[in-house]
C-alpha cells in the first residue's frame, strides 16, 4: 500500500471516532462536533469572547515570540561562538549556564512578574529564556566540534583570527546553530502559550484566548485555538527544516 495512504489511516480513524463519540454524547460543553470547530477555524476574522479575532490573537502571539526569540538569537549566538572558541570565556560562564539551563522557563514567571510587572516585557523575557539555552548550547557545540585541521589549513595560508572566524568557524557552526534555532523556536512557542495563560500577564494572544474560552466553558474555541497553535508551530518547524536541507546539504550524513 502507498506510504501516504498508510500515514492517513490513523488520523482519519481519529476524526471518524471523534465525530461518532460527539454524536453519541451530544453535549457541546464536553465534546463538540467537528463541524462547530471547523466553523470557528474557518472564520479567523470573527471576534471571539471579546478578545479579538483569531488572526489578531495570532498576531500578538507571533509578535511576542519573534521579539523574545530574536533577543535570544542576538545574545546566544555571539556568546556561544565566544564560549566555544575561548576556553576561558567558556569556563567563565560554565557554572551559571549549567545551573540555569535545566530550570523550566515557566518557573521564572513569578520572579519576572515581580521584577518587570505585567505586559509585553515579561512575556518577551519568558520566551527569551525558552529560546536562549538551546541556541547557546548548540552554537557552543558547533564551534567546539570544528576539526582542528580546518583551522590549520587556514593558518597555512596566513589567515588571521578574523578570517578564521568568518571562513571556518561560522560556516562550520551554522548547521548546528540552525538546529539550535529550530529547537529554541519550538520551546519559545510553548513558553509563549503557557505565559499567556498566566493570569494578568498580557490580555491577548492565542494562549489568553484559550484561557478565556476555558472560563466560559467554550470547548470548541479552545480546540480551535489549539489547532492554530499546532499548525503555526508545525509551519515554523518545517521552515527551519527546509532551511537545513536547502543550505546545509553538504553535511556528512550520520547514521
Amino acid at each position: 500500500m502507498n506510504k501516504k495512504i498508510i500515514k492517513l489511516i490513523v488520523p482519519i480513524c481519529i476524526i471518524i471516532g471523534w465525530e461518532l463519540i460527539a454524536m453519541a454524547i451530544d453535549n457541546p460543553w464536553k465534546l463538540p462536533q467537528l463541524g462547530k470547530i471547523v466553523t470557528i477555524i474557518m472564520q479567523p476574522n470573527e471576534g471571539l469572547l471579546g478578545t479579538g479575532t483569531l488572526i489578531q490573537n495570532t498576531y500578538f502571539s507571533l509578535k511576542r515570540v519573534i521579539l523574545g526569540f530574536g533577543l535570544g538569537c542576538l545574545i546566544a549566538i555571539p556568546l556561544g561562538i565566544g564560549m566555544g572558541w575561548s576556553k576561558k570565556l567558556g569556563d567563565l560562564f560554565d557554572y551559571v549556564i549549567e545551573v540555569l539551563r535545566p530550570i523550566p522557563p515557566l518557573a521564572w514567571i513569578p520572579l519576572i512578574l515581580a521584577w518587570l510587572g505585567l505586559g509585553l516585557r515579561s512575556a518577551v523575557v519568558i520566551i527569551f529564556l525558552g529560546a536562549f539555552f538551546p541556541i547557546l548550547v548548540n552554537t557552543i557545540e558547533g564551534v567546539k566540534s570544528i576539526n582542528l585541521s580546518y583551522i590549520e589549513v587556514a593558518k597555512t595560508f596566513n589567515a588571521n583570527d578574523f578570517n578564521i572566524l568568518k571562513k571556518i568557524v561560522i560556516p562550520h557552526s551554522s548547521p548546528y546553530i540552525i538546529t539550535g534555532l529550530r529547537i529554541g523556536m519550538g520551546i519559545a512557542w510553548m513558553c509563549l502559550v503557557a505565559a499567556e495563560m498566566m493570569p494578568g500577564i498580557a490580555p491577548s494572544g492565542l494562549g489568553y484566548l484559550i484561557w478565556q474560552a476555558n472560563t466560559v466553558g467554550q470547548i470548541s474555541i479552545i480546540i480551535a485555538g489549539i489547532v492554530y497553535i499546532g499548525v503555526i508551530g508545525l509551519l515554523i518547524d518545517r521552515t527551519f527544516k527546509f532551511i537545513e536541507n536547502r543550505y546545509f546539504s553538504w553535511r556528512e550524513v550520520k547514521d
Partner: protein
Amino acid sequence: MEKLRITNLEKTFMSEKSAKVSAVKDMTFDVKEREFLCIVGPSGCGKTTLLRMIAGLEEPTSGNIDWGNDNDIDHKIGFVFQDDALLPWRTTYNNIAFGLELLKDDKGNINEKVSDLIEFMNLKGFENSYPKELSGGMQKRVAIARALVVDPDLLLMDEPFVSLDAQTRNTLQKELIKVWENKENTIIFITHSVDEAVFLADRVLILTARPTKVKKEINIGLERPRDRTSNEFIGIRKMILSEID
C-alpha cells in the same frame, strides 16, 4: 642552491605528567631548490612535528629554519594534510579557491587559476561537488590542488596517500610527479612507505626513532618514470629498509 636549511632543530613537548618529551632533536638538513625530498622513519617518530614546524604551525623549541637567500619575504606554503581537511561546506571549486580568497586575490585571477588547476588535476565535471560526494582519490586531488593554487614556495605533504587503495595510490603518485615536473615545485613529502619514497624522491632522508634526527640520506638517482620492478629500484628499497629496522 638551497631552498631551506634546517639547523639543530629541536622540539620538546610537555607530557600530561609534566615530563619533557623530546620529539625532535639535533635535526639538521638542507632542501634544494626544486627538489623532491621524501622523509621516512619509524612510526611515532617526529616526522609530522618536523613538517608542522616548517609550516609554522608549531614553534621549534630551539634551532633554526632558514629560507635560502630571501629570508625576509613571507613564504607561501602549500600543506597537504593526512586527512585532507577539505572544508565540507565548500565545493571543489571553492575549496581550491580558499587560499587565494585569503590572500585577497581578485575574482578574475582566482577563476583563472582555479579553472586551470581543475583541468590539470582531472577534476573537470566535479567543480560543484561537495567533498562528501567525491571518492577518496578525488578528494586527494582537490587537497593537492588547494595547496598548489597559491604557487607555494614549498609544498609540504604529510603522508597524503596513506588512506588510499594501492591502485589509486599508484595513480596519484604518477600524477604528483607530473605536477612536480610541470610546476617546478620544491616538495617535502613524508611517508612510511619506502616503496613510495623510492618511487617519488630525488633524495630520501631516513630518520631515527624518538628523539628524531637524521640517520642517513640517500640520493635515488634513478631515471623517471621509475620501474618498481627493476633491480636498481629493489636494491635501493632493500637498503633503506635495512636502515630503518
